[in-house]
């Protein structure tokens, strides 16, 4: 329920990191949460060494959705694409000091947006 967010969640909700867009993004992930209808868009910038150098997001969603979006952008920066693929929604939630049970599904949004951004990047790379 509302109000049961950890300090860390509230901190990220209050000051979300990396809000915005990357105009020349290497990959864009666009996902909707089937449980609640919330939406997240994640932009990643990948360099020639397959390292994610930048990540930005836009999210329409609850407090947990915004905090997990913010956290996932923090977690992927500096990781290789392969490493980023191993980041699970649980890992994002844990990095935030946990989420209330009914809000766990919100963290799935972040994981899926990341997957989708990486898929988009891979598809673009193949074409190029």
């Amino acid at each position, binding site marked *: *329920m509302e109000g049961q967010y950890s300090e860390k969640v*509230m901190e990220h909700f209050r000051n979300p990191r990396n809000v915005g867009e990357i105009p020349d993004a290497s990959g864009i992930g666009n996902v909707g949460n089937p449980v609640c209808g919330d939406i997240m868009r994640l932009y990643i910038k990948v360099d020639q060494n397959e390292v994610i150098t930048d990540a930005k997001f*836009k999210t*329409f969603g609850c*407090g947990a959705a*915004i905090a997990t979006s913010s956290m996932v952008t923090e977690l992927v920066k500096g990781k290789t694409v392969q490493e980023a693929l191993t980041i699970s929604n649980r890992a994002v939630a844990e990095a935030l000091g946990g989420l209330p049970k009914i809000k766990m599904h919100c963290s799935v949004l972040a994981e899926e947006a990341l997957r989708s951004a990486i898929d988009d990047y891979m598809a673009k790379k193949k074409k190029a």
Partner: protein
Amino acid sequence: MKKVYLDNNATTKMREEVLDAMLPFYKDIYGNASSIHEFGRLARRAIDDAREKVAGLLGAASVEEIVFTSGGTESDNFAIKGAAHALKAKGDHIITSSIEHQAILNTCKFLEKEGYKVTYISVDKDGIVDLEELKRLIADKTILVSIMYANNEVGTIEPIEEAARIAKEKGVYFHTDAVQAVGKIPFDVKSLNIDLASMSGHKIYGPKGMGALYIKKLTKITPQMQGGHHEMGKRAGTENVAGIVGLGKAAELAKKELSDESKRLTGLRDYLYKGITSRIESIRLNGHPDKRLPNTVNVGFKYLEGESIILNLDMEGIAVSTGSACTSGSLEPSHVLTAMGVDPAETQGSIRFSLSRDNTKEDMDYVLEVLPPIIKRLRDMSPLYEKGKK
């Protein structure tokens, strides 16, 4: 930090006068109202006095028509189940609306499991129930129509006078959940010709866990609580004397102040809404433009989700909600807004501001100062916003 509480449809702050009236009954006047000695008689007298005040607020013809309960939820349960069980031989069909409080909807669902048939009539875009549909739906087996007087989420005031007339013409009992209306708008069960009406203490600056059910004389109703002969044999259990006294005091004050206070609140409510419309684009008013509770304004902020707005306002000391406090643990969109045909994407960003006697124009100004930057910040974060912006 400044604190502005605008969640008064969820609950209100108890008035000093109410607390003062209650305290002696937690200390020196502790008798059981059923006892014949003086200790008991003092408690009995206090209950009688409170019953008179509640009867006065509701416009009951006689004090015996008021039964004290543990709140709006119990009153709703008692009315619906009690009438359904008492009239089982006559029929098994109940009509209610699609925008009722959970206390009605879930009681109806419970009865459906017992074999009753329930029809939920629809509402228009402003949340007004369809009376033509009501007329069409009343059948031989219909035993009860229950329609709320005013909706808790959007504040729309229902045409219960006409609804009651339609039900009574067909010889069907009429119940109204008046929990949000009582004390805010005039209510008179006698002239409205209502059989059953629910009210609650904590929405009118009274105690929580305290309410009443109006039961018109000769109405058939099966008690839901078996035990002693309390409450004219309709609701067993040693009376919560302090709570009853508090409810009585709250009722007395509400009746006295209703007319002035409802005018003042309507002014504040409209001042707030006008201020929001002039400062923030892409918003909508949820609920009827005028047939609405004086203290309630529900605003939909397009491209946004409600919880993030609530949390941001909370950080600034402003307490609001997305609708019903009872549904905040759920992820479903509001059943009230959905029934009103609001686009699912737009039900999410709806915020209910519900005012009280403690709120001032300064409070509204504070909201109007704090809200626009929050909405802007969240919209800048929303992937839906740019589409709407063009």
